């Protein structure tokens, strides 16, 4: 083997990457050729010196790329919570795979494990316990439409222990015909539990669907003080509103004013027209229908 071919193989030889058959030839040459042998030590020294120049990134890209996640227990189940320093980003129940792929799809970002700050942990915990959260700290992405912003902003104002209908939400945000749209927005709610979309039920009565399943919605409402069984019984009888014989005011059945009506004065109504005909007016607190 000639010097030229040997020199190109010296570096590979140094790290033992040369094929076995070539190794022997190179070694043989090095024994007889001092200048090539020198270049072997030379490459070694240079390699060490270059290695010492290695730069390190000033900070890891993890912070730029990823939000943090942590988990909170619900009964015997995991609730996964993604959060940024501005607030909660995603709450989901079930497998971590599902959670992180939902997150990637929704926000196009990755997740790294972290510790949920106490303030946020308290919010999630009290939401699970049914204590309600007055001012949820949520980091909505900037892509929320005005309607989404209004609807999700309205939810925490539904009092704990009461429920409203999708139709009511649509009316409150000034888009009375957008009932389906409201349903879709609630279904897409990134932070269920904390932003209480479980307090919205179908106009026809009953509890309706939930991101974490109907049973959990019932459980949550019960924890918040809603008599779910009574609500479902009313739905079976097609009763949507409860009026008071003495005040001539009509409420949603879960309205705090409706709960104060005495048994003998309770008047069930199946619809707004029926109530209006009898000279009743809607409650100013729960505003069950337009006056």
């Amino acid at each position: 083997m000639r010097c030229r071919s040997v020199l190109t193989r010296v570096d590979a030889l140094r790290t033992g990457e040369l094929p076995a058959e070539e190794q022997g030839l190179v070694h043989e040459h090095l024994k007889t050729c001092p200048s090539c042998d020198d270049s072997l030590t030379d490459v070694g020294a240079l390699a060490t010196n270059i290695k010492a120049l290695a730069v390190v990134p000033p900070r890891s890209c993890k912070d730029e790329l990823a939000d943090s996640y942590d988990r909170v227990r619900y009964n015997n189940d995991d609730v996964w919570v993604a959060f940024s320093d501005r607030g909660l980003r995603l709450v989901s129940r079930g497998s971590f795979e599902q959670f992180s792929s939902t997150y990637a799809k929704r926000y196009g970002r990755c997740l790294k494990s972290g510790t949920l700050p106490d303030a946020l942990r308290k919010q999630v915990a009290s939401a699970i316990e049914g204590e309600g959260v007055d001012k949820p700290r949520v980091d909505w992405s900037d892509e929320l439409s005005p309607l989404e912003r209004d609807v999700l902003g309205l939810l925490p104002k539904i009092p704990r222990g009461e429920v409203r209908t999708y139709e009511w939400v649509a009316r409150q945000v000034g888009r009375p015909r957008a009932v389906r749209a409201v349903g879709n927005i609630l279904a897409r709610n990134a932070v269920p539990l904390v932003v209480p979309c479980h307090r919205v039920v179908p106009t026809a009565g009953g509890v309706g669907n939930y991101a974490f399943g109907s049973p959990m919605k019932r459980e949550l409402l019960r924890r918040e003080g809603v008599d779910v069984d009574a609500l479902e019984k009313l739905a079976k009888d097609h009763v949507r509103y409860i009026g008071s014989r003495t005040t001539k005011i009509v409420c949603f059945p879960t309205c705090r004013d409706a709960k104060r009506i005495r048994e003998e004065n309770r008047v069930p109504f199946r619809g707004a027209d029926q109530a209006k005909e009898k000279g009743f007016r809607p409650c100013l607190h729960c505003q069950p229908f337009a006056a």
Partner: protein
Amino acid sequence: MKNSWTGGEAARLETAEENLAVAVHRSEPGALERLIDRFEPALYGYAYGILQNTFDAQEVVQDAVLRAHRALTRQYDEARCAALALRPWLFRTVRNLCLNKRRSKTRALEQPLETFDDGRIGPFVREHGSELERKEDAELLRHAMSGLPLDARELIVLRFMEEMSYADIAKTVGTSEASLRGKVFRSLKLLREALEERGVTHAL
């Protein structure tokens, strides 16, 4: 070399990283962090070697990791992830992004900023081995490297800074191992010449 990221020798060399690719694919908790922890310094060193700019290098690495994550979790199925030679694949991603970035910049940056004459360059005679001298030698080496043509600098960074195997480098830059050995040798020669120009004659 296109689409040659699967199978072959590289896959056997990269057992631990293979699993990492699958772990990221399955969205296992902490998998992405492990991937970032393991590769970020090397990828950054490589990007910096090409771009010679901290901000650009960081941006490229970040973009590369994001793309890798997207590819592993959404585009590739598990079999493909399992057969993926993760290290050269990541380096290749960084390389492509770096070259894109350079192309979009003005040619002015072709000459790295660090090559200006700061007065410390030139023939010198000094005893060998003091702390100061080692520092100056390192500085000279840095200068010499930043003056190299891009492809030579790239190979030197991959081979000697990141200590990658010839097999992996060949995959990253898209060439055969045999011709790569020659290229690395010529790059080293260029570096040696650049050092001599700066008056370094003793072995560094």
